[in-house]
């Protein structure tokens, strides 16, 4: 039987109310898995939940920046076979205007939450042997952009965290990997479009041999990393960039 499926697996997806997180939750269910989805926005999370295939899914509204919400989430989740960390923010700001407050804002959502969530899930033994952890990095971790001091650094930190988890948990057969997408058409992209100039963005988009990505392109790679088809893969980052980093265009 093909190992490219997620039958009998329960997977937690954070940031599941929109964009890549939402699509990953939908794709997991399409491939036979069950999900526990979480996000801050109750209404949008319910909208994702309604579209999930299968009957064994659950939805927990939580602001993971709030310690009580995070603990309540960990207490309520069933035993997990996988976790996909999709919660994240991007706020471009040049270095000379950065402050402690700005650093906290990005790092709390893009790094601290992931660390604390992993700490609590593993200490409470809510994770099964041979589980698979997937973190959402970005090509900007290794190929930064102007204004990206915090976003790029937080994603580089996530890649390091993923490798440490791969090392600390291999005795339980638990794997940890990152997906590193380039530009993907999501609400975060629309936000970037408002923040940057459209000309700059259009110029960027024209450098993709296969065009910019869709959430489904990222979700398919997440499904692969969550499935037993990738059971020999741990501690790596898969780049998803439509050929952008080839740099030939």
């Amino acid at each position: 039987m093909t190992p490219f499926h997620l039958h009998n697996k329960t997977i937690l997806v954070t940031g599941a109310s929109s964009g890549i997180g939402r699509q990953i939750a939908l794709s997991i269910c399409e491939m036979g898995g069950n999900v526990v989805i979480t996000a801050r926005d109750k209404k949008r999370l319910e909208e994702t939940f309604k579209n999930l295939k299968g009957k064994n899914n659950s939805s927990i509204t939580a602001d993971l920046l709030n310690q009580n919400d995070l603990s309540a989430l960990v207490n309520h989740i069933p035993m997990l076979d996988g976790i996909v960390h999709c919660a994240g923010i991007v706020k471009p700001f040049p270095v000379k205007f950065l402050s402690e407050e700005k650093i906290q804002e990005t790092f709390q959502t893009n790094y601290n939450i992931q660390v604390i969530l992993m700490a609590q899930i593993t200490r409470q033994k809510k994770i099964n042997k041979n589980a698979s952890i997937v973190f959402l990095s970005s090509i900007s971790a290794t190929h930064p952009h102007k204004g990206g001091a915090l976003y790029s650094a937080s994603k580089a930190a996530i890649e390091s965290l993923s490798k440490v988890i791969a090392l600390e948990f291999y005795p339980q057969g638990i794997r940890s990997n990152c997906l590193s997408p380039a530009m993907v058409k999501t609400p975060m992209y629309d936000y970037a479009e408002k923040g940057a100039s459209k000309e700059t963005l259009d110029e960027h988009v024209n450098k993709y041999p296969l065009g910019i990505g869709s959430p489904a392109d990222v979700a398919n790679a997440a499904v692969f990393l969550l499935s037993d088809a990738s059971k020999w893969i741990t501690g790596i980052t898969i780049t998803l960039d439509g050929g952008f980093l080839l740099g030939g265009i």
Partner: protein
Amino acid sequence: MNITDFIKKIETEIDEFEAGTLNPDTDLRKTTAWTSMHALIIIALIDTEYNVTITGEDLRTITSIEDLYNIIQSRIAV
């Protein structure tokens, strides 16, 4: 806050603009020195100094520093 102070702040933050070269009618995006980095700096400057959020879209619609100043004023007032 007045427009003269605002212009001085822009001239201080963006090295390519020498003091006294900008005026309320200047269309920043049409100046020869303008780059995408300057858009980031203007957005961050306004966020830091006035706690007002300006988007790239706002910067595209304005045709003078005065337009930008008026947007800031209107958002401070709210």
